[in-house]
């Protein structure tokens, strides 16, 4: 009971701040929390990144091994994205197979990379129809401070940018970079009482009725989008979010993801 009352009070507090144009941590509505990205943090992985975005903390590992291509794309490599909301990262996460939240996050991270054609899949082919590189992107969330979505996307792209195809281990010559040709960046906004805020903290996310993630690429085009949550958005709100998402993605890309 006490917990529910606390949650209600917290909700009112954030809502009242919002009315005054403020956020609990003093940020502007379109401002991200402090972001750090460290790469090559796991030397057993072919690529890796540790992302801290405010209180959110996660590690992305990229493992690359050989495998069989899908029958309908015999000359293309395979990307498999996995995200786990392990119980270490939050009192509300539970052990067991991924639930809908984790699956949605993994699939949006995956689409952001796949649909922007950030990786040149045809260059992951070793022997057409027989042997291709399988790129496993595993997102390991360690601390849920809100907006796992953007942290995971950033981590996945950062890990890929430093990842190597392990040619040597498979007797295929020298290791080379994963063939990246774009740098997609996801930006997530929430709607709270009519206002739009970027990069929600955990509290903001929990009281927001709706989240919209927009992934845009180097040219400022849109490659993926996902609304999540039970409140509707107006066309104006969506168009507004798309505009600031593209702009913010550009900023983040230039600052954190230079190839």
């Amino acid at each position: 009971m006490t917990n529910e009352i606390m949650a209600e009070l917290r909700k009112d507090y954030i809502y009242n701040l919002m009315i005054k144009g403020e956020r609990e941590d003093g940020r502007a509505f379109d401002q991200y929390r402090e972001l750090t990205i460290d790469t090559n943090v796991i030397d057993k992985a072919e690529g890796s990144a540790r992302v801290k975005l405010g209180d959110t903390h996660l590690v992305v590992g990229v493992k690359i091994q050989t495998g069989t291509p899908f029958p309908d794309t015999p000359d293309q490599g395979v990307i498999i994205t996995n995200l786990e909301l392990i119980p270490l990262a939050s009192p509300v996460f539970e052990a067991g197979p991924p639930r809908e939240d984790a699956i949605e996050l993994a699939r949006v991270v995956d689409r952001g990379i796949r649909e922007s054609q950030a990786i040149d899949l045809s260059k992951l082919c070793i022997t057409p129809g027989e042997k291709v590189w399988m790129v496993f992107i595993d997102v390991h969330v360690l601390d849920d401070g809100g907006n796992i979505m953007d942290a995971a996307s950033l981590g996945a792209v950062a890990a890929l940018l430093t990842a190597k195809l392990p040619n040597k281990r498979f007797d295929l010559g020298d290791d080379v970079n994963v063939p990246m040709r774009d740098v997609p960046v996801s930006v997530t906004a929430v709607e709270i009482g009519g206002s739009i805020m970027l990069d929600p903290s955990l509290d903001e996310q929990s009281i927001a009725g709706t989240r919209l993630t927009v992934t845009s690429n180097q040219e400022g085009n849109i490659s993926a989008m996902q609304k999540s949550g039970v409140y509707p958005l107006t066309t104006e709100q969506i168009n507004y979010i798309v505009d600031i998402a593209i702009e913010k993605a550009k900023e983040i890309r230039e600052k954190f993801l230079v190839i």
Partner: protein
Amino acid sequence: MSKPEKLIENGIRLDGRRPDELRPIKIKVGVLNRADGSCYFEFGRNKVIAAVYGPREVHPRHQQKSTSAVVRYRYNMASFSVEERKRPGPDRRSIEVSKVSREALEPVIFQEYFPRSAIDIFVEVLQADAGTRTAGINAASIALADAGIPMKSLVSSCAVGKVDDTLVLDLFKDEDNYGQCDMPIAMTPDGNITLIQMDGHLTRDEFTEGLEMAKKGCLAIHELQKAALIEKYNSQLEGEVNDK
């Protein structure tokens, strides 16, 4: 089939439609006996059936909410609904589709009327040809009304896409496979977007234009949904009048 050379020729799509044209739609309300509400929906070659049970007791109990109904949505593809047989049971895609579909409908359901109860929506895809999630939402929306669940409005859903650099409404399978973008939306008749997803490639301007195109599609579907419900209730009424 392998990628066709052109997906649009002289402004006409492979299946004969104009870019802003929906596929043929067929709606039948109240097709199931056991369910509290139901709807069969054909959207081009898609064939889906939706059933609604509820408000009813929640099992397991710990899923109950004390101040509102819990809405549950299960999107499922029949094994035989696609070219390559699908293994029965939920996969990652169907779990995501179920989640966003549920969220597309929750905004219009008066959940607070039924605390501690469940409203269960089941959508079965009998045949799939791109657009099953939108077909499912359209069907589920009607099935909810058929079940007498109090709603603010219906929800209508369709996708917009891009093929051969042209925006097109309501992709069918080949356009989905070989096109450049797929963007399903769901909308209330007053223009509130309750679902939007997108993947592929759109410029900023194409996005705005595409969204408007999808909204028009939703409004057209809304009219067909209303008509199907009215027809059902008229025929019921007639039945009752004839009974006298």
